[in-house]
């Protein structure tokens, strides 16, 4: 079934100064929109067309002949998940069950931050950094290109896009500065909801 480009869940300027209006306009209206269009064009008329996009992603992750479709499906999904992983006036530290679980599984919130920053900074080339639930344990992972944790049975809680197009306008090649900025707007409520629903 065709996947609809969701509107940003906040105004384009809502994440400033951390993520600029210009970046969100290009990233959402051009880059994400193009992935959605490419996915819809490619899935139309195939056996997979009746499935929700998450099912398509899981169904074809290991099929090398479908890697083009997988790429566009996963990029379409990942970006939607990424928009929700940020929100205005957010950042700081999580609370409640998520805070307890981060403390238990990483040792401390600071250790989680170190692991997350490291995953984002060391993902070679293009990709994503994730907080996931793997079994009953929280983990930080990084994935190349479009790959997402749904394909390895993990539950994504939040993600950070570390493709150059996510930060170049604001931070040029300074990916670590963008990672710091992301953590100023990270949406812990979204991550907590995903944990509660897992």
């Amino acid at each position, binding site marked *: 079934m065709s996947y609809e*480009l*969701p*509107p*940003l*869940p*906040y*105004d*384009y300027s809502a994440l400033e100064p951390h993520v600029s209006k*210009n970046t969100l*306009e*290009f990233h*959402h*209206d*051009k*880059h994400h*929109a*193009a*992935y959605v*269009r*490419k996915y819809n064009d490619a899935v139309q008329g195939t056996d997979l067309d009746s499935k929700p996009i998450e099912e398509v992603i899981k169904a074809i992750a290991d099929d090398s002949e479908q*890697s*083009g479709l997988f*790429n*566009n499906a996963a*990029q379409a999904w990942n970006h939607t998940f990424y928009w929700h992983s940020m929100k205005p006036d957010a950042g700081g530290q999580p609370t409640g069950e998520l805070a307890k679980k981060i403390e238990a599984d990483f040792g401390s919130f600071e250790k989680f931050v170190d692991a997350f920053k490291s995953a984002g900074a060391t993902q*070679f*080339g*293009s990709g994503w950094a994730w907080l996931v639930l793997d079994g009953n344990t929280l983990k930080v992972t990084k994935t190349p*290109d*479009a790959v997402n944790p749904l394909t390895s049975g993990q539950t994504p809680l939040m993600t950070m896009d570390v*493709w*150059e*197009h996510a930060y*170049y*306008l604001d931070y040029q090649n300074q990916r670590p500065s963008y990672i710091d900025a992301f953590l100023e707007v990270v949406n812990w409520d979204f991550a907590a909801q995903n944990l509660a629903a897992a």
Partner: protein
Amino acid sequence: MEESQTDYLQIVISFTYKGWKITLDQGELDGQIIYSAWADNEQCSAVAVPYAPSRRVAIQRAKQWIDRRLTSTD
């Protein structure tokens, strides 16, 4: 929440380089025309160059992106 503007790519040129299709897209940023370059092959569709000030720079950086990619996966 603002309406998304889904009329997104303004393709200005498209050509093949080392098995990849490079597509230049034109946009406007603070009153200036800027370009981005997509690189597509059978497996991957990527924003190879997010923003460049001219077509020439966009094409040059897109080719460099593909060259790096081919080197890193060889």
